[in-house]
């Protein structure tokens, strides 16, 4: 794995390299070099299996991380290719021509994160959330708790007490120790 990464580093600009396990590494690549890198890995290095394609929302850095996880089934090792995308122009080139199944992942990312993949087949079709109009829900700024509170009614009769506050109420209600 180490040698492979060293070789890749001479050919591509990899900004970060983490050897997570003996058989799993993560590298970060630029947008321009993603496609050549994937092609190289697929055709030259045996990473023929697109394990998954997903995103991570680093909202505090205004970045979407795309992770293309490729597997070499013969060697039993994987490489996660990470791409950092500006969150406000969330659009990336499609790889459905490299792996047809990528279209499904890209369709989901479009729906759940609002990351566009122009040219990807049926990318604008509803996938899981038919009729969804709110913020793409897997973005970190979509608040599931708020959504559920607005959408559903709490069961009546639910009430809880904080042990420490209740003990103060019962045992020393008049004492105030704020200094």
């Amino acid at each position, binding site marked *: 794995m180490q040698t492979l990464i060293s070789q890749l580093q001479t050919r591509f600009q990899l900004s970060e390299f983490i050897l997570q396990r003996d058989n799993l590494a993560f590298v970060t690549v630029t947008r321009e070099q993603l496609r050549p890198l994937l092609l190289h890995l697929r055709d030259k290095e045996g990473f023929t299996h697109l394990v998954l394609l997903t995103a991570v929302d680093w909202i505090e850095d205004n970045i979407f991380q795309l992770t293309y996880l490729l597997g070499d089934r013969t060697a039993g090792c994987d490489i996660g290719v990470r791409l950092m995308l500006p969150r406000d122009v969330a659009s990336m080139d499609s790889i459905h021509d490299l792996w*047809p199944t990528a279209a499904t992942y890209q369709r989901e990312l479009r729906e759940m994160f609002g990351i566009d993949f122009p040219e990807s087949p049926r990318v604008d079709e509803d996938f899981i959330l038919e009729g969804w109009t709110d913020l793409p829900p897997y973005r970190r700024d979509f608040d599931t708790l708020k959504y559920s509170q607005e959408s559903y009614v709490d069961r009546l009769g639910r009430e809880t007490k904080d042990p420490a506050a209740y003990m103060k109420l019962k045992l020393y209600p008049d004492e105030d120790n704020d200094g």
Partner: protein
Amino acid sequence: MADAEFGKADRSQYPHRRPDGSLDIDLTSGKYLKLWQGPNHPGITGNMSVELTVCGDEVVEGKTHVGYLHRGFEKLMERRTFIQCFPIVCRICVPEPDFNEYCYAAAVEELAGLEIPEKAKWIRALILEMGRINSYLMYLGGQAGAFGQGVIGQWTTYARDLMLDRFEELTGARIYHMFILPGGVRDDLPEGFDERMEQTLQEVERTLDDVYDTMFRNAVFKKRAVGLGYVDPALVDEYGITGPVARGAGVARDVRKDQPYLVYDQLDFEPVTGRESDVYARADVRRRDLLMSVDLIRQILSKMPHKGEVMATLPNVLHWKIPRGETYIRGECSRGEYGYYLVTDGSGYPRRVNVRGPSYTHAMALLEKLIVNVNISDVAGLMVSLHTYPPEIER
């Protein structure tokens, strides 16, 4: 509206492809009909549906629709502590929930730098193989049922119920076991478990004998299943195909062998493969894989250490924070590669969890490809042969 006239027409004539490659289906032409198979169609495995465009009794296009069971687990986990995620992951795959528990726990353990006791690994492998048997038994009933053989489902349900009894005595629950948690497993095997498991395994084998005679050596089943849903081995990588679907096409890929996890490097087995890559071949791969699991359980129970801890020392789980990192953990479930991609950010909550269920690729892109030109009555059999559990598609 199976119009005899269309049936006689030259297949290659329709539907036409537009210059961009998409099918030119004009519903107003009267040549085509939209047919929704599912949700909750008896031939559908779970809550999903296929939007079929048929011409006569032949499918010209099929689109998978999921989302009927979307609960947003990946998002829900982002606001649960690492231990609180443990009880919900099992729901991502009902018939074989244990891979969720295992992959999640292993991912957390790796990022938290937690070493689990040796015995816990054996018990985890035991549970995963028990789950595989259950999943296959359910599949066999479904596959036979899709071609009208109701009795197979009755027999396999019986055998599965015995295995659920073993699950119940080992884990305290029948369906959602919640037994494999970060750090190890909840408890050791109960007293006398080995003997009862052996009885159950024998009953499973006996049931499988009957299934073999009535389903696999059955002219009707063969007539329906042989040649149906051929998967070209070349598609395996393009479509992210794993598990019995790949092995049915002769691609001997099994994570247990390729990237041995838990104790699989200490067990004696070879991946089960087929050649014909049709519905029949896949069913047979699964049947033989099931029998291999029976053997693996026997191996596990005989090789497992008798004594030892089954749970590592955890920090106080209420404040458990895991340093920033990411990892991917996979296992070979009954349907193929099951995996968890976990990203942590140093807080007490996962930053991102992505569940890779094998149905995601099989029931979407692959099914949509395979379904073209299939007879309507074979759609159910084809779908079941991909062994789809919809919750792992939509999570």
